[in-house]
């Protein structure tokens, strides 16, 4: 499903975010990505949906060499990958409904299907009743859950979640963690970057730990690694 071969990513002028990363994530796996702030977690994820391309090495997602596919095919790759961005990236002037419906619109789902699915995922993330609010006026945690709703509305083959519980209280975070586990059980491959030790330790899944852009631990089942 996801294979990285000798992948390095160096940002101009010379900030090394990933260094010689080799990893394989099979179909249906659930992987936690951990590491200190700036360790390279978001960069790792960004390479998978081609927000960025590797400085060297190969990134293979769903059988395609992501850096090599032509620009016009990128949207079709992205539709198979649901992403919860660390900064949410919601269309803040649009309503919650419009934000969540957007991937369905892009893939030309019929209106009836959209009208069915949007409330369904909003219910899953606990945001029923917020459809008509502009995304920009929601609370931090609410926005985070809208981002999650949007990422799962297409039942993506791969779910990439970058710190999806960073702005949630413990109770809501547990609900969201369970939801992600649910999605995993229904067949999606999940890669989740997180700083939440208790979620990692509760779900007991594979944990890839990054330090300064290198993989320093890759265990299944793993535990949260406390640094320093």
């Amino acid at each position: 499903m996801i294979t990285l071969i000798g992948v390095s990513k160096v940002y101009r002028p010379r900030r090394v975010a990933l260094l010689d990363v080799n990893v394989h994530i099979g179909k249906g796996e659930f992987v936690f990505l951990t590491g200190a702030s700036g360790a390279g977690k978001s960069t790792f994820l960004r390479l998978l949906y081609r927000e960025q391309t590797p400085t060297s090495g190969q990134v293979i997602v769903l059988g395609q060499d992501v850096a090599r596919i032509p620009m016009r095919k990128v949207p079709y790759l992205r539709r198979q990958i649901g992403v919860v961005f660390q900064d949410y990236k919601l269309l803040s002037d649009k309503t919650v409904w419009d934000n969540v419906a957007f991937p369905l619109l892009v893939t030309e789902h019929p209106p009836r299907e959209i009208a069915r699915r949007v409330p369904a995922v909003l219910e899953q993330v606990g945001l029923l009743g917020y459809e008509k609010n502009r995304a920009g006026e929601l609370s931090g945690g609410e926005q985070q859950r809208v981002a999650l709703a949007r990422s799962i509305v297409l039942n993506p083959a791969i779910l990439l979640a970058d710190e999806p519980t960073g702005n949630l209280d413990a109770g809501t975070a547990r609900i969201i963690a369970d939801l992600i586990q649910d999605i995993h059980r229904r067949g999606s491959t999940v890669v989740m970057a997180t700083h939440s030790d208790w979620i990692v330790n509760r779900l007991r899944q594979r944990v890839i730990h990054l330090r300064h852009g290198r993989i320093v631990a890759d265990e299944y089942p793993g535990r949260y690694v406390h640094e320093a």
Partner: protein
Amino acid sequence: MKPSTWIYYLREAWQGVRSGGLLSLASALAIVVSLAALAVVMILAVNLQHMTRVVENQLQMVAYLVEDFDRTWQDELMRKVKAIPHVKQATFVTREEGLQRLQDQLGSDSVLLEAAAESGNPLPDAVEVEVDDPRYMGQVAAALGTIESVEEVAYRRDIVNRLTALTDGIRNVGLALVLLLAAASLLTVANTVRLTIYARRREIAIMKLVGATNSFIRWPFLLEGFLFGLVGAGLALAIAWGGYSWLVVRVGEGLPFVPVLSPDAVLLQVAQWLLVGGVLLGVGGSVVSLRRFLRV
């Protein structure tokens, strides 16, 4: 594409226009006004060109014939005159007609003419020649001079030269102005569209990251650009049309001798350019401006 997608595009385009609010209004106004200025200048230029053509066509030269010209040769003579290249029209004017016309032209209070009339009609028969382009007057005059029984060829060489230079000058200045204003309108429209898109660059990037194709993102902007261009050009035309119609009526009353074109004739010409131009600008501006932000 499915109808529901089209509905989305239209809704987006409309919201784009609406959410801009005053911004869109100001943009639209800038587009309308600069296109209106362009339209006005285009109309003026078309009219100037028309006027200079009318004036040029009124430029005549006269071949005075020998005093004892035998009018039985008239047809033969006219054939020869008309055979000269660039002669558009030639009219035989008898000395009697000539005097009559001179009296009409100078008015009855001409002291000079009274004096001339006292001593009998001093004019010879003549042929009035119209040339299709004032530039060839010298050439035509020379050719006329070689025809027998032509005594003298008269035309206001200086006036012809001046007029040619003047009409050329007017035409060039008019053209330069039209081009300058066209450039200004182009930049205004393109710039407005560009800034509108720039203000929404973050939104565009997000859409791309969530799997939207370039064309999916582009369509609402294209429609918005199309609307802007169309409405802008349409309003500009309406303004220009109204203003010009009013002007034509006033000119017709006050300056009946100035040859203005009828509104319909001019505006159809201008309308084509403006509408096509406006729409192309709006849509083209969108496409070009978007390109930079679609590379995500």
